[in-house]
């Protein structure tokens, strides 16, 4: 069976094409997979209101003090001058009893679920990184008054020793980074996500090395990048009428993110008196808002509203820009054994990486066993605390994908083999090869027997022109004097199935005019989630897409949070269930109307008619009007029956990992300046099934630009003498702009190998993670030298070439 290329470039745009690869006989949908008008059009027309835009009558503002030092303790605070400033309403100081609610759940501040005295992170007396919200917060009649009042706060600081380097932090005489934790070292010991273990073992690593023909060792280092350039934190709280109204810039206000629970506790109201509004929200990319410090503005706003009786808006200042760091920072040391045919026999990875969210995965421990046939794997990691801002995931997975990509590309380079061949040779799952072992399991579980990696590679090779362009490293000098390079990287899909064992919900309600609203609580942060949900619902229900709306402000319907990744797999299943149930309901009610059986009827484009006699029909609008009592109670769905597997127990079935993602990159490297000119990026994702083509492409090129920026230009520079950041704003910290655009080919491969509805897979994280590895590979192919330190800046390339 042969894959077929369908689709066309979206526009005569030399910088962008999008296409899908699909079997010709795959079913066609009416709305799914088709471009439709976006539901969140207000983002373009300027009508979209974000939390930072909201103004309420009598609203006050609040801001917090940020630490000017990498590590310091507040000895005393004098707020007398600040209090005198006209317009200042209230000031909270770190030792205020209101900051000690009875039982904050763990996890606030430093990352997800790290066990710490959590009150300390709302307004602590000890700052453990520069820019940390610390000691004082001011509530006033304007943001400017808050700024001025904070300047008038007199603080006596006790400067404390700090450490920035993760290796230094582990030495016996290293400065203690966080005294309040009561430890005498900097080791993070609490790792609930990995059950407290920092070692992952599969097979027999020493036997694997003995089996190998060759062994290589190398090391990768990644610098600090930050979330930079998203809507800064903001929260509004209004405690009135025995209710707490919240406007939250948060990707997941309910459930894991916890700010609603925190705020309710602070306000002293039961959860049934909390209302949450969050129509639009600036980018979050996963963890930017729902982990760690994202809860602080909500708690402060609630506290101030409780104390002042007025709505209070808390605004982060520009330090928000770098208040969260990327997960990949750290050092990864590799030892890899392999046979002369490219078969990898043993992988040993020792890493010293960030704490916080990323510290909860041992780099290499998830993707390598789940997506390769390598039998012997040993991963060990430490996560020392340092005096840098907490880590979050944003377009998560880099700390896992870096080791994955590097292993196979280095083996290919050592052997002089085509890296795509090495990839295919080692592709598999849980130590078993992809063929024939996985083929049998695919059949058993009702999946098509397709080879995701092979299809992705085939599509990507054609797009980049791999067979004509790939050459030995350092072998192609262009007439313009630059070196030509081309690289390849691969990894598995972002998880195989939805990743959390608890359920999510959404509801459908019917209106008298025949319109329908889907209600659930989730932020609108990304590639037009409402559109995707409405497409699925309309497809399954038989109603018109334009008759369906998605209302994202319904706290009682907590939906899965990420937009284009595992969240889509689950939320698509919810929408599918809602759509199917709606169709059944419509047909049951219409059966009464027509005096027929439901199976004799059908619904299409919001018209219900008799199959045998299409002239016998009724508009859905008229049906609802006539039988409104039948529709009045709405429909609820959790999607559980349409999700084929849940990755974490309790899972209805053993989950395997079949979806693959690849990237190809073509560059030119100037040996005189070290500049890298990106000529073309090809991102190929097995998405299982495309729901919204723009949604897929958006994740692909979006991840491509963010990923290459993080890999090439983005790095926070710390002053080693003070621990203070030196390029702490968007002027000096270089995020790729429109001026840095390069041609991108986005290819969606449709294999239906995903566990989500329609066999779909999440891809929100992979493009960003892949491009870092493919950049390193392409530069190696150009200059014949590995650059082992990220970001890969011109000075490092010149150094590798012996010119600096």
């Amino acid at each position, binding site marked *: 069976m042969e894959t077929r290329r369908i689709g066309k470039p*979206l*526009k*005569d*745009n*030399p*910088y*962008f094409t999008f296409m899908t690869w699909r079997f010709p006989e795959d079913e066609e949908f009416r709305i799914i997979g088709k*471009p439709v*008008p976006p539901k*969140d059009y207000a*983002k*373009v*027309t*300027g*009508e979209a*209101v*974000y939390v*930072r*835009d909201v*103004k309420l009558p009598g609203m006050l503002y609040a801001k917090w003090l940020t630490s000017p030092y990498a590590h310091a303790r507040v000895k005393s605070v004098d707020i007398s001058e600040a209090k005198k400033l*006209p*317009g200042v309403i209230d000031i909270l100081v770190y030792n205020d009893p209101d900051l000690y609610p009875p039982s904050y759940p763990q996890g606030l501040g430093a990352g997800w679920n790290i066990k710490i005295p959590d009150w300390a992170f709302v307004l602590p007396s000890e700052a453990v990184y520069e820019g940390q919200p610390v000691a004082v917060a001011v509530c006033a*009649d*304007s943001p*400017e008054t808050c700024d*001025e009042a904070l*300047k008038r706060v007199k603080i006596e600081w006790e400067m404390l020793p700090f450490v920035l380097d993760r290796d230094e932090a582990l030495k016996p005489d290293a400065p203690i980074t966080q005294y309040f934790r009561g430890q005498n070292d900097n080791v993070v010991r609490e790792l609930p996500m990995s059950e407290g273990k920092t070692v992952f073992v599969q097979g027999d690593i020493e036997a694997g090395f003995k089996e190998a023909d060759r062994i290589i060792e190398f090391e990768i280092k990644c610098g600090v990048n930050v979330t*930079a*350039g*998203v*809507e*800064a934190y903001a929260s509004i709280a209004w405690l009135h009428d025995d209710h707490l109204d919240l406007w939250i810039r948060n990707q997941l206000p309910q459930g894991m993110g916890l700010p609603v629970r925190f705020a309710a506790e602070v306000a002293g109201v039961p959860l049934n008196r909390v209302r949450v509004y969050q129509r*639009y*929200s*600036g*980018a979050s990319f996963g963890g930017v808002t729902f982990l760690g410090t994202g809860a602080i503005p909500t708690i402060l706003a609630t506290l101030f509203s409780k104390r002042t009786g007025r709505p209070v808006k808390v605004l982060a*200042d520009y330090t*928000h*820009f770098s208040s969260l760091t990327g997960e990949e920072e750290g050092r990864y040391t590799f030892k890899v054994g392999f046979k002369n045919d490219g078969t990898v026999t043993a992988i040993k990875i020792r890493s010293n990486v960030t704490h916080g969210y990323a510290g909860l995965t041992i780099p290499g421990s998830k993707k390598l066993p789940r997506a390769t046939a390598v039998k012997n794997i040993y991963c060990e990691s430490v996560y020392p605390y340092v005096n840098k801002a907490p880590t979050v995931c944003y377009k998560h997975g880099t700390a896992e994908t870096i080791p994955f990509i590097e292993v196979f590309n280095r083996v290919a380079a050592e052997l002089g083999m085509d890296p795509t061949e090495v990839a295919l040779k080692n592709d598999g799952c849980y130590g078993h090869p992809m063929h024939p072992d996985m083929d049998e399991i695919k059949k058993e579980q009702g999946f098509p027997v397709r080879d995701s990696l092979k299809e992705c590679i085939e599509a990507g090779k054609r797009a980049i022109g791999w067979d004509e362009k790939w050459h030995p490293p350092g072998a192609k000098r262009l007439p313009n004097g630059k070196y030509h390079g081309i690289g390849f990287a691969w990894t598995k899909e972002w998880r195989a199935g939805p990743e959390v064992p608890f359920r999510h919900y959404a509801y459908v309600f019917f209106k008298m005019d025949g319109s329908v609203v889907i209600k659930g609580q989730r932020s609108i*942060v*990304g*590639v037009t989630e409402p559109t995707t949900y409405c497409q699925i619902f309309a497809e399954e229900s038989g109603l018109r897409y334009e008759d369906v709306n998605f209302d994202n402000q319904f706290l009682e319907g907590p939906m899965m949070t990420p937009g284009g990744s595992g969240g889509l797999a689950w939320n698509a299943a919810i929408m599918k269930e809602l759509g199917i149930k709606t169709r059944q309901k419509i047909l049951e009610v219409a059966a009464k109307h027509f005096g027929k059986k439901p199976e004799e009827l059908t619904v299409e484009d919001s018209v219900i008619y008799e199959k045998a006699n299409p002239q016998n029909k009724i508009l859905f609008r008229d049906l609802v009007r006539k039988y409104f009592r039948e529709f009045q109670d709405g429909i609820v769905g959790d999607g559980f029956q349409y999700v084929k597997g849940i990755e974490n127990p309790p899972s209805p079935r053993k989950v395997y990992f079949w979806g693959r993602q690849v990237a190809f990159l073509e560059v030119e490297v100037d040996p005189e300046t070290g500049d890298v000119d990106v000529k073309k990026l090809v991102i190929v994702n097995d998405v299982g099934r495309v729901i919204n083509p*723009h*949604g897929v*492409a*958006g994740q692909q*090129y*979006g*991840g491509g*630009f*963010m990923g290459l920026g993080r890999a090439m230009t983005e790095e926070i520079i710390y002053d080693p003498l003070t621990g203070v950041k030196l390029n702490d*704003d*968007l*002027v000096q910290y270089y*995020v*790729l*702009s*429109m*001026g840095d*655009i390069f041609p991108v080919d986005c290819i969606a491969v449709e294999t239906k190998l995903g566990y989500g509805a329609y066999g779909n897979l999440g891809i929100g994280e992979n493009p960003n993670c892949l491009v870092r590895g493919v950049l390193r590979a392409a530069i190696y192919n150009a200059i014949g030298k590995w650059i082992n330190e990220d970001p890969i800046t011109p000075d490092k390339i010149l150094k590798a070439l012996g010119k600096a």
Partner: protein
Amino acid sequence: MNEKIEQKNENSSTAALTSTVFENNEFKTTATLIPITLNVNDKLYQVHAAPNWTLHQVLKDIIGIVSVKDMCLGHGACGSCTVLLDGRPVLSCLTLAVDCDGKKIETVEGIARNHPLIEAFLKHYSFQCGYCTPGFVMTAKALLDRKRDVTAEDVIKALSGNICRCGTYPAVLSAVLEAAKR
């Protein structure tokens, strides 16, 4: 044009009529607000503004224009607060409001829903979280108002001051190129 002038903050509280300025190495509160008239999206507003207030502050906090965003929080680095000042794109966070007295200001709210740029941005999904999008639309409008026969390179150059953390650049380019042909 609507000739009726809307008075915005003339009768505000005393606190709103004060402003803080930095003089002789200290902050001083002053009440010297200057009356200015702004033509925002073909509507006239009379506003009392302190000399140090930015156009962004006045548009957002006094007049109530929500589309002017603040991604870089006033550093002039992201383009999300871009508006057209007498047809020229400016960063409203770095433009003093008093310098705009009597001038014509356009924001994305003033662009018709069926404007080719709006339609093209929607068609190509040239937005993700949307926080930077109004800035892209306004910068692109300034380009197309000036020149219709644009190349991809023209568009890239014109929009090179705009940052989208979601990375929507290829789709923005598609939209602007398409709008230019209509």
